[in-house]
């Protein structure tokens, strides 16, 4: 809440505008400057991100609220409450760390890269602090567009651009839900403030909830939208680390946590959310186990882990969901950056080719291990505790949800273990494939690329304190979620043992993965067959209809008009016009006759005059004779 002194208020408002404005302005400036800012880009971007971390801490403490007129009855509103006070600094830290890594790795067109990343950071800041629907949607869609531009960052490669297109169109399909929600909120008379939505009368409330669900599921890569995240892996690794795990995808889960009061009043929505989250965690967990590409494995795991956050929102466990969101952001950013470091160094992200890569760079390997073990739910690392807090909420809601969630947790251990064991396996040339299958590797990982990994690894190890007293109590206090269910000792022990058991089971085992799991449940193919192809077919048909039917009809009407005109002329000619025509043509013939003597030669005229005079004299004589 804002302080009593006006200058504290002013400071808060200033920092909040700085939080969203600074990265936006610097990002746009870098993007516009383009090649001219090649050298400056990385330092400027890292410095900006560093300032933003400080600013984010400040707004978390000051909790400012700002509102400026935007649309009629729907101001552009930003506010920092307990939830955003926790999320905003997390995202800021991850952004800084990822940008340091990206600067160390180097990239083509650095100004464009860092510019887009900073614009994205601004959009996330607005999303996380938005207090009205138009504000949220404003930033929400910009995140999507930056995701498109960053996935297709290396635009000479058509498949990368296609990956960006798939990601943008799929998530925008979900975004339509927010347009629907805004309309329904207005129809219900609730206003467009996010906090007011739960007050809309039924059935408008239900439509609002449906719209919010759709948008959140799309962004968070929940079922049935998950496949876009697979295509998003065509983007550079820092992009995957920031957008497709820690920030943008996470915002899908975040939106549901923020909208938890709405879910509570629309009971069907809460149940749907819980089950979609649980099933995504389970099925995408299975997909992750089946992947042979490290980034694909991590992507499927991201969707699955976000499933836990979504499940938490559905069962009303806001504290557990938020803790899991934060812990997962740190963990997954670490794993993606490590994967990116190896991709740069070895030119591959295929697990079979990365065999033993962790041993070659032990520091990177240890950091990766910390992240993977956290992901597996090993005691006492972060995701172990946070996930159990979510599951405690699920158990209270429905035992079936708990069982599905526990199975999903076991799968987390399986896929994390799979990656871990392969990367730490003894490299043996006959088992390992060749390097440089995807790009030319540099064979080195610089020190500034390693430092971010270590920082994130520390976070991935200790973030679990957010779910355990005493820090956990403070955390719940910030969120106002003191009454959320806590896991019992046996649940904590049980899940820890389960994780260890699964880890032991997958050690050294190689099972044939079912093709539905390697192919991401065929979701992409299904979308192509059921949605994309029919739409394209329809568009071709309609285009042909437009040319061959509609336009032809118009042309024929015009031609018909001409024909009718000709017919009318003909009818006229045959009828009353005929007499007139005959007279006219007779006159014309006379005219022709009359013209015939006019030859223009003088002697002809003389002859004619003589003849006429002779005739006149003859006429006179005849007349005189008659009269007499």
């Amino acid at each position, binding site marked *: 809440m804002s302080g009593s002194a006006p200058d504290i208020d002013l400071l808060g408002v200033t920092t909040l505008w700085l939080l969203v404005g600074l990265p936006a302005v610097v990002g746009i400036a870098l993007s516009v400057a383009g090649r001219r800012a090649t050298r400056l880009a990385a330092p400027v971007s890292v410095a900006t991100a560093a300032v933003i971390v400080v600013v984010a801490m400040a707004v978390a403490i000051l909790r400012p609220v700002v509102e400026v007129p935007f*649309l*009629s009855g729907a101001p552009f509103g930003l506010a920092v409450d307990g939830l955003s006070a926790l999320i905003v600094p997390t995202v800021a830290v991850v952004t800084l760390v990822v940008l340091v890594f990206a600067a160390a790795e180097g990239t083509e067109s650095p100004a464009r890269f860092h510019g887009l990343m900073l614009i994205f950071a601004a959009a996330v800041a607005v999303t996380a602090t938005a207090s009205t629907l138009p504000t949220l949607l404003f930033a929400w*869609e910009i995140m999507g567009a930056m995701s498109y531009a960053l996935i297709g960052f290396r635009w*000479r490669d058509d498949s990368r651009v296609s990956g960006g297109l798939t990601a943008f169109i799929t998530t925008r399909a979900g975004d339509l839900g927010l*347009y629907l929600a*805004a*309309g329904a909120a*207005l129809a219900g008379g609730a206003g467009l403030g996010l906090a007011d939505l739960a007050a809309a009368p039924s059935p408008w409330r239900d439509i609002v909830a449906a719209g919010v669900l759709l948008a959140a599921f799309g962004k968070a890569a929940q079922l049935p939208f998950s496949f876009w995240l697979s295509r998003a892996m065509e983007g550079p690794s820092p992009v995957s680390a920031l957008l497709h795990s820690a920030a943008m995808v996470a915002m899908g889960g975040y939106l549901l946590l923020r909208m938890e009061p709405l879910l509570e009043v629309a009971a069907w929505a809460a149940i749907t959310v819980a089950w979609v989250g649980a099933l995504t965690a389970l099925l995408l967990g299975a997909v992750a186990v089946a992947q042979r590409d490290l980034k694909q494995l991590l992507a499927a795991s991201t969707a699955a882990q976000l499933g836990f956050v979504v499940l938490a929102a559905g069962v009303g466990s806001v504290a557990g969901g938020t803790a899991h969101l934060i812990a997962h952001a740190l963990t997954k950013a670490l794993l993606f950056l490590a994967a990116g470091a190896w991709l740069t160094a070895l030119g591959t992200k295929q697990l079979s080719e990365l065999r033993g890569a962790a041993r070659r760079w032990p520091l990177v390997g240890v950091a990766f291990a910390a992240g993977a073990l956290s992901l597996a739910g090993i005691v006492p690392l972060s995701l172990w505790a946070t996930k159990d807090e979510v599951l405690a909420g699920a158990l209270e809601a429905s035992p079936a949800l708990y069982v599905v969630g526990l199975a999903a947790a076991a799968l987390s251990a399986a896929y994390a273990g799979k990656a871990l064991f392969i990367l730490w396996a003894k490299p043996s040339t006959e088992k390992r494939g060749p390097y440089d299958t995807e790009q030319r590797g540099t064979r080195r990982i610089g020190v500034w690329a390693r430092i971010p990994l270590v920082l994130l690894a520390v976070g991935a190890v200790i973030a679990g304190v957010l779910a355990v007293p005493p820090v956990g109590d403070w955390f719940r206090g910030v969120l106002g979620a003191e009454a959320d269910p806590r896991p019992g000792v046996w649940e904590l022990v049980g899940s820890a043992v389960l994780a260890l058991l699964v880890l032991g089971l997958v050690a050294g085992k190689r099972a044939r993965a079912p093709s539905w799991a390697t192919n991401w449940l065929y979701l992409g193919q299904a979308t192509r067959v059921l949605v994309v192809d029919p739409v394209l077919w329809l568009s071709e048909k309609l285009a042909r209809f437009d040319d061959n039917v509609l336009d032809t009809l118009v042309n024929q009407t015009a031609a018909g008009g001409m024909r009718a005109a000709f017919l009318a002329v003909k009818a006229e000619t045959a009828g009353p016009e005929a007499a007139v025509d005959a007279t006219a043509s007779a006159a014309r013939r006379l005219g022709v006759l009359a013209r015939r003597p006019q030859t223009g030669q003088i002697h002809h005229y003389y002859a004619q005059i003589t003849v006429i005079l002779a005739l006149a004299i003859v006429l006179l004589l005849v007349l005189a004779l008659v009269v007499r």
Partner: protein
Amino acid sequence: MLSLAIFLPLVAAAVLAAIPRIPDTVVRWTWLAVTLVDLAILVGMWFSYTSPQPGELAFEEQLRWMPSVGSSYHVGVDGLSLPLLALTGVVFVACAIYALKDRDRQKSQAGLFLFLQSVSLGLFAAQDLILFFAFFDLTIVAMYFIIAGWGHGDAARSALKFFLYTFLGSLSLLLGFIGLYLGSEPHTFDVVELAKTTPFQNAPVAAGFVLAAIFIGLAIKTPTFPFHTWLPPAHTDAPAIGSAVLAGVMLKLGTYGFVRIAMPLLPDAWRSWAWLIVAIGIISVLYGALVALAQTDVKRMIAYTSVNHMGYVIIAVGAAGVVSDSSAQAQQLAITGAVVQMVSHGLVTAALFLLAGVLYERRSSYDLDSFGGLAAPAPRFAAFFAVAAFASLGLPGLSGFIAEFQIFTGSIGTVPLSAIALPGILITAALFLRALQRLFTGATCGLSVDFTDLRPREVLSIGSLLLLSVVIGVFPRFLLDVIEPAASVLAVLVGR
């Protein structure tokens, strides 16, 4: 001041025509100077504008013209027309800059565009039906000569089709205007007077026929499904600046007619037929987007997206006719969104057509598949096209979002079934991203090789249009403060 803004270009055109043997350079720069002065006048009006009381106008001027039939030279400005007057000024400046390098019959071209600018401004300011009709027809004549004279491909045929089709529309419009005249008591063509008396209050059938005549006339101009087939050939064969004016300014004549004439003068009929109007809008949105998706010619594609974008306007004005006790905010949002969409579409589509003109000027082709990897030789062109495409598909931060968010929120707020049109913005996104991908990404091949990037004159002309789209997208208040009061007044007028 208003008449000065309207007739300055016309006077300049007459002067240019009167002076024989004037050098082309002088013609070009005079043309640009006149459009700039005219824009300056319009901007001055914008800053001195305060929203008039309901039923009144700002910068009002009235002269006796044909008192026997209740028609006068009556012009004036309110929140619905001021944004469109300003848009007209901006688009014509952009065209004058873009045409600085043209060498083909400069004097006639400049004269025609100046003439067209005058009649377009006159139309948006007209408060008399006869005056409105006269300007409406004169725009058609001017555009016919622009397409036929400076177009390419099958220009003569396309121009003729454009002329006959839209002229037919204007006749339907005239029929409706005469109907309004006969239905008013006392007989008048004055829009302000007609809005006060509301003709046909107790004759719903007659009102329905009059509305039908006016609606068809405006729908052809807009154009909505199924009256749009003149648009793609007209655009494809028109010169770049002709297309820019056609899409940027002239399509707005139709949609502006709805908010200026059809809605306030025939409120009962409008409310009765609102459902049909919304349905036509929904069909236009989806049909336009789907047909655009299948196009391989850049200009045809953009032309069909105009059908889609104008469809949103139709949905909004239709939905604003569904009145209930609690609908005031939704109606106002929908109307505001519709007017913003007119401005936004004017800026963005004009920019897109000028960009398409760059393609044709360099390579004489609009074929998407003949290009590829164009971002390598022409990064600035790629960036401009991308911004224009994202603005057109309604990305936040650009003007299209401000328009479409208000249109959808307001329309769904009064007619929940308007949500059927939502996939329109998804299909538009898909088709623009596909076009971007075909033109700009991948390996540089085909006609893209050695493509010259945007020249300064092109950057200035297209950039200013896009910059305005960004300004409206980020700081929309300066525009909405003008539109919103007028939208509220219109919502009340429709509701009576």
